[in-house]
Each structure stands twice: as structure tokens, then as C-alpha cells.
């Protein structure tokens, strides 16, 4: 598992109160991990802090699974 993947999964599990084992790449925040709309906003905030960036709202809306979050971080940050 890449470093970014690990960090994203850790944040997802912390924010959504899910076991790290349950946080799979294909997991959907809402459908699989029980997030509500406010949870997803907070999750984006946490990702922004972890990776020291700002994720525009129109991009944030498209991040609905763990893999999409990993992809976004990989594509936009270094």
C-alpha cells in the first residue's frame, strides 16, 4: 500500500468512525461507510488539512469513494 493510500484510509476511518479493515479502495463513503452529507464535508476538510491543499467544491463533490480520494491526491498534490 502506498503512503498516500495509507494516509487517506487512516483519515477516512478516523472521520467516519469505521474500522480500518472495512475501509477498502472501492468503499463508498455514503453507501458502505455510513457517511451523511456533513460527514463527507468534514472528510474533505480533513483531507485538505492532511495534504495541505484546498479541494474546490466542484472537485470535492466527485470524491465519493476511497479510491477517488486517493486518485485525487495522487493527481493534484506533490
Amino acid at each position, binding site marked *: 500500500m502506498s503512503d498516500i493510500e495509507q494516509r487517506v484510509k487512516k483519515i477516512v476511518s478516523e472521520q467516519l468512525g469505521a474500522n480500518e479493515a472495512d475501509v477498502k479502495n472501492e468503499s463508498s463513503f455514503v453507501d458502505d461507510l455510513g457517511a*451523511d452529507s*456533513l460527514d463527507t464535508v468534514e472528510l474533505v*476538510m480533513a483531507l485538505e488539512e492532511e495534504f495541505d491543499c484546498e479541494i474546490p467544491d466542484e472537485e470535492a463533490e466527485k470524491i465519493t469513494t476511497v479510491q477517488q480520494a486517493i486518485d485525487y491526491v495522487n493527481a493534484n498534490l506533490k
Partner: protein
Amino acid sequence: MLEGQIALVTGASRGIGAAIASELAKQGAKVIGTATTDSGAEQISQALAGVGGLGLALDVNDPAQVESVLKAIADQFGEVSVLVNNAGITRDTLLMRMKDADWDAVISTNLTSVYRMSQAVLRPMMKARSGRIINISSVVGHMGNAGQTNYAAAKAGMAGFTRSLAAEVGSRGITVNCIAPGFIDTDMTRELPENVREELLKRVPMNRFGDVGDIAAAVVFLASSSASYITGETLHVNGGMYMA
């Protein structure tokens, strides 16, 4: 009662806002009060000097100033845990005579500022899983008053904003409430003609105008942990002038 809290009160140089700021400070909160002018801010600093509070200049209509003031507070004191949206103006006139500027100024200063300030403090409150947003509305927003369509619309708007935001952030331990003062003896109400004041007083069962301290006490209550299960509510403080 409020030790460890960091309270931000807008429009704190005089009237109800000044009383709220000093009472919150008396209860142990670190209080930052804002005013539109530097002299107003200086006045607040002097009033709060004994308790380590501070006055800052802030035009609540200016998003850039809102951001810089909140950053200054966070750097110096920490994140705001109690926000009191008190800043407000009147531009009273009958609707038949009202100008766009009268309408826009009141909606912007009294209502849009509540949106802007609340949004600005929300992120740290969400992270802290606690916070208090207290909006000072008015009895006029509930009963209406000739000559104040703009003011009443802004104040009624605050109540709807309050209920909606309360629904959004209740799960994060943040409460959002309004306090609706009735006829309080301040500079704003002293501007009214004497006959109008007398007529208004006839409608107050307690038979007196309210004191700014009556409002400040209600703010302290809603800011305290005693009020942690009250949210989306309007607390009327009006001597019985209007009973919701």
C-alpha cells in the same frame, strides 16, 4: 461559568452588544468585541481591559475583513467557541418611501453578516465538536412594525437561518439560537419620538423598557453548558410585549 471559552461579539461598542461583551467577560470568557470604526474598537478595548478582552475594527459586510479578524483572533487567543451576531442597523421608513439602499444596507448588515460570520467560525467548531452561535434578532421580526419592513425581514430571516443551521450542525454539538429583544433602552430606541416610546410602553405588561443587562443575561445562559440541549430556538426577552 464560561472559563476557557473564546467569545466573539459583533457590534460591541455600545448598547446591547457592549453589555453582552462585558457580561460574557465577567463570566470568565475571553471576549473579542468588534465595531465598524477604530475609535469604536478602542472603546471596546478600554471597556474590556480589566478582563483581558479586546476590541477590533470589523465591517461585517466585508468578507476580507471577516477573514483577517478571525485569523487574528485565532493567532492571539485560539478559535472562537461562542459567536454572538449582534451587529445591526436600522433604516426605518415606510415601504412606499423605501429606497433600494435602505433595503440593501439593512439586509446586508443584519442578515448577510450572520451567514458570513457563522460560516467563518463553523469549521473550528465542527472540529471541536462544540460551539455556540447566538443571533440577536428582534421582537419586530415576529410581530412586525410599520416603518421597518427591511429590519423585520432581516430579523425574521435570522430565525429561519438559525433553525436551518441548527439542523445542520446539531450532530456536532453546536447549538444555534436567537435571542429576540423587545423594547430595550438603548441609543437605537432613544432615537424614537417620545410619543412612540409611550405607545410602545403601553404594550409591555412588565411596564418598563428592558435593560441591556436583561439581554446579556440571556446570552450568558445560551452560551453556558446549562443550555446545551437548546437549539434552533428563539428566546424572547421582552417583558411580555409579545408572547410567541
